[in-house]
């Protein structure tokens, strides 16, 4: 349980920080595409007998770079492109898993999370990847904020906009890998998008939104784990539900506050 709690804190911190940019740059559906690419990778790993997070990470990064490349060329809309990759990755997973004999309990853990069985080695990998993602965000925060403000001005100032975009998508891919054990590939969006969306309801600038998003994601992770432990529920689903519940509550409170007592 202690390892699970550390995992929840690490994943929450990373997802909250990166989620700020996912919400700001409207990349939520891109996150869906990348996380489903990870499912394809997990299927390859389970079939081949490899550690599933390795092909999941390779698949997620590959799809992230393909999406970044597709956005640049502009022959197809972004959502169509993501739909193609998403469908392909899931179809691959279904076909590969149909070749597997026996039960698929371990698959459930990668799809919906099972952090309670996280090993010390996996926690170590998670911690290393979290350090890479958070370190990269800290180093490139202002250039990433600049391209979110106006890509064309940033390009005219000589910033490598294409490289920064690709970096952001690769960091999303690594974050998906980080979060797979906690909430699973199919629910990682809950931590990537929802806490940052909740923070945007409360704070007007990044100075408030960023730490609030990280705090909410950590609280959802740790609180969801505690709920799951106490009530014998699925941890991944509990974490996602808690995040969405906090968003719903925030929405109601902000709506009441904005409408005022006299309205």
């Amino acid at each position: 349980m202690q390892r699970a709690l550390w995992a929840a804190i690490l994943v929450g911190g990373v997802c909250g920080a990166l989620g700020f940019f996912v919400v700001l740059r409207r990349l939520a559906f891109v996150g869906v595409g990348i996380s489903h690419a990870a499912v394809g990778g997990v299927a390859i790993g389970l079939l081949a007998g490899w550690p599933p997070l390795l092909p999941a990470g390779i698949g997620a990064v590959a799809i992230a770079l393909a999406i970044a490349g597709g956005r640049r060329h502009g022959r197809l809309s972004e959502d169509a492109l993501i739909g193609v990759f998403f469908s392909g990755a899931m179809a691959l997973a279904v076909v590969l898993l149909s070749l597997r004999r026996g039960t698929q309990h371990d698959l459930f853990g990668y799809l919906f999370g099972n952090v309670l069985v996280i090993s010390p080695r996996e926690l170590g990998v998670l911690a290393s990847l979290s350090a890479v993602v958070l370190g990269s965000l800290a180093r490139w925060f202002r250039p990433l904020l600049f391209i979110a403000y106006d890509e064309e001005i940033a390009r005219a100032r000589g910033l490598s906009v294409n490289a920064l975009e690709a970096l952001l998508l690769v960091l999303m891919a690594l974050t998906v890998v980080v979060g797979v054990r906690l909430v699973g590939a199919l629910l990682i969006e809950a931590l990537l998008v929802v806490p940052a969306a909740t923070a945007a309801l409360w704070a007007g600038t990044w100075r408030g939104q960023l730490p609030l998003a990280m705090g909410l994601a950590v609280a959802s992770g740790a609180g969801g784990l505690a709920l799951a432990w106490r009530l014998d529920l699925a941890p991944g689903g509990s974490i996602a539900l808690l995040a969405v519940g906090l968003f719903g509550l925030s929405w109601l409170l902000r709506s009441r506050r904005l409408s005022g007592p006299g309205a």
Partner: protein
Amino acid sequence: MRAPPRVRARGLWVHRGPRLVLEDISFEVGAGELTGICGPNGAGKTTLLRVLLGLLRADAGEIRVLGAKPGDRRAAAGIGYVPQHHSPHPRFPARVLDVVQMGLLSSRRGRPGTRRERRRIALESLERVGIADLGERPLGALSGGERRRVTLAQALCAQPQLLVLDEPTVGLDLPAEQAFYALLRRQKEELDLAVIAVSHDLVALAGAADQLLCINRRMHSHGHPDDVVHSHALREAYACEFDFLAGEIAHHGRHGLGP
């Protein structure tokens, strides 16, 4: 000895797919000069700016911006740019000071100096455009005209040698437009800037510019604004007749009216 021009273009040809957009364009912009570019819709004005900024490549011709090829990272650090379709999300999560400080970012210099130094430079830039009191406000709390000034402050923040403005006064009413061009001329003189501005408002642009370029795929007219606005070539470029009020263009800060 005369300083080299900040921008020199010779015989530029640009295609967008099969369509010829710019044909044999040549001009120079020196320090302390405000060059206006006018022309009808689809004339290639924005395309010309994008070629200067290295965002598009010319098919033929020679071009030097701040002594380097367009898109050169070293030169890019010396350029301030206000694009035509600039409309950040009204809830963009940053204070005005943060947005202005972004102007200090470039591939070459990263973010220079200490936090205090950057804040001082950003505040100075806001003072130049007359909105120093708005520094702590979220960007979304500003009016359209104020946001336009923030973009200009951001462009001036890195003390550029060349300022490129694409339709900078769109959406501004007449007093705001006049104030904007007066501000631009003041900054141009104080900072010894070379300025290139594209605008559909020919009267306001001609009143503020030191030289005017009229293009419609090719250069139809080029020279002193008085000469250009009264030339037949301008009417040819726009393919219509028009009459500026009593043939006079008010030149801000300069003497001399049209014939």
